[in-house]
């Protein structure tokens, strides 16, 4: 458990890693209760298991991937844009993750990037039933977006995980990230005549706010 805060220190934003370092020492205290209830002997093993998953990915993909955190039951991997397809394929075929829980887009205007986070999980592999693998990848962000026709693009994972189909459509309309190889990049939730910025971008402001 003592090795865990060090792993966590590598945050999403590398330049902020110093201040988080001392703060995140509280974090294991918060995450402990969940595994505490399960047989207590398992507790030291859990982070090792998650570290094994992270190490396997790092071994295979080297500098294209970085570990952003290893917490009990959660592994966060940051993947470059061009490697995300391969890493996802590796996660499905070798690590036995079989579906995607959620796909979230997060806008980082300061970095000029949009992060798309895939939460992978598994139904079939009993050892992975508690685990969530976070694959985070970043697309270039443009200040004046033309959704679908600008450089904000990522490879689609639909051919690997079929379950991302609607999630990626949602990210496309909410953040303007075009998924290359997705067969059906249509609008899903927003009204048909929506002509404003994609609403979940940080520069889109709700009226009156």
């Amino acid at each position: 458990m003592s090795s865990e805060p060090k792993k966590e220190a590598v945050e999403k934003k590398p330049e902020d890693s110093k201040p988080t370092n001392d703060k995140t020492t509280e974090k294991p205290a918060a995450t402990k209760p969940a595994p505490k209830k399960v047989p207590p002997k398992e507790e030291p093993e859990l982070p090792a298991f998650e570290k094994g998953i992270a190490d396997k990915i790092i071994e295979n993909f080297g500098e294209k991937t970085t570990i952003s955190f290893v917490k009990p039951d959660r592994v966060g991997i940051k993947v470059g844009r061009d490697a995300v397809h391969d890493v996802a394929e590796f996660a499905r075929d070798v690590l036995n993750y079989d579906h995607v829980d959620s796909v979230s887009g997060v806008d980082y205007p300061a970095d000029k990037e949009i992060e798309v986070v895939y939460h992978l999980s598994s139904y079939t592999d009993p050892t992975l039933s508690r685990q969530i693998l976070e694959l985070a990848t970043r697309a270039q962000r443009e200040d004046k977006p033309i959704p679908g026709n600008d450089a904000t693009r990522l490879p689609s994972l639909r051919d690997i995980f079929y379950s991302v189909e609607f999630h990626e459509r949602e990210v496309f309309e909410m953040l303007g990230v075009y998924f290359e190889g997705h067969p059906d990049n249509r609008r899903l939730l927003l009204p048909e005549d929506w002509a404003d910025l994609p609403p979940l971008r940080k520069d889109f402001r709700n009226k009156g706010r």
Partner: protein
Amino acid sequence: MSTPILPPGLAIQKADERIMTLNVGPQHPGSGHMRIIVQIDGDYIVACDPDPGYVHRGEEKMAEYRNYVLNVPHLERPVIHDSCNVLYPYVLGVEELLGLEVTERAKYIRVIAAELNRCVYTMYWLAIYGIFLGHSTMFMWPAGDRELLIDLLEKMTGARVTHSYFIPGGIRNDLPANFEDVCLRQVNYFEKRIKEYADVFYENPILISRTEKTGVLTRENAIRLGTTGSVLRASGVDYDVRKKEPYDVYDELDFETNVMKSGDSYARSRIPWLDMMESCRIIRDALQKMPKSGSVRVKLKPNPKGGFDSVYKRVESGRGALGCYIVSDKKPEPYRVKLSVPSFRNLIALPHLLIGEKLGNMPSTYWSLNYWPVEADR
């Protein structure tokens, strides 16, 4: 038709001579708040395109303007009759971000409230399922019986459906006096009552002939499509977040998960009903094991400073695994809140179930997905 005044999605599409395009919804007794565009050849569905978004209210964007506690009321609105469960992952996530440890009594009360809420949700779902099948008794019985549990929740929280009961750090208020006895009595009666549904609904030959072997989702497809909850368990995958990744005190409680193999509409409609009986079991067990006194709420800590932090929490709601992904930049407001809702995840299965089915089976198949449109749209 006066096409110019119509928004593009409403324009009538020209179809093939044989193939007819039907817009089922958003005003249709068999669709609820969404539109299902189906193409039919004779009586058989050949293509299906779900069109959600009629209740898209921008909850995730709104969450970025409110602080962590003020987000509680509006984040439970997606499923107001399952409001405890839909709020659960958010509250757990905020507690993990702040490093709060909730008291034991609060955890038990949360579990009781969540299970009561699951029953309330399932009863409403069952009532509407009765309407979709043209079974009026099955609307009246569950709609009447769920009021019993709503009374209990009202005693507990003060509101009929929108409880805002779970807050970061515990629950809002302690149980009223004498709640345990009333709860036990009501739950026992409720369980006896729902067992009678077998006679009128689940063993009813008309229902069985209408739903059996329709809308079959195989085990492989259920996994591949990432479905969750009752849809997944009806297809033979034993996965329940309460068992697999227990949160709060679920690992100390005694219950089973229900799994059926057939994966048809009948199995999908039966699983939530069986789950309700397990919920009654959980509530009784929790009432017994709950500490009889103690604090139910811990004081919130100040937000830690500096850098980004994220958390992904999931719970088992009335419809399936419900995840909440919170990104915090250590400001009073969350940087991003994403709800990964089971309805939205199950929606992808709809075209797979409907293609090749008869149009008449559409309402029962659609509603057996345990779908709540407001939640899917957020």
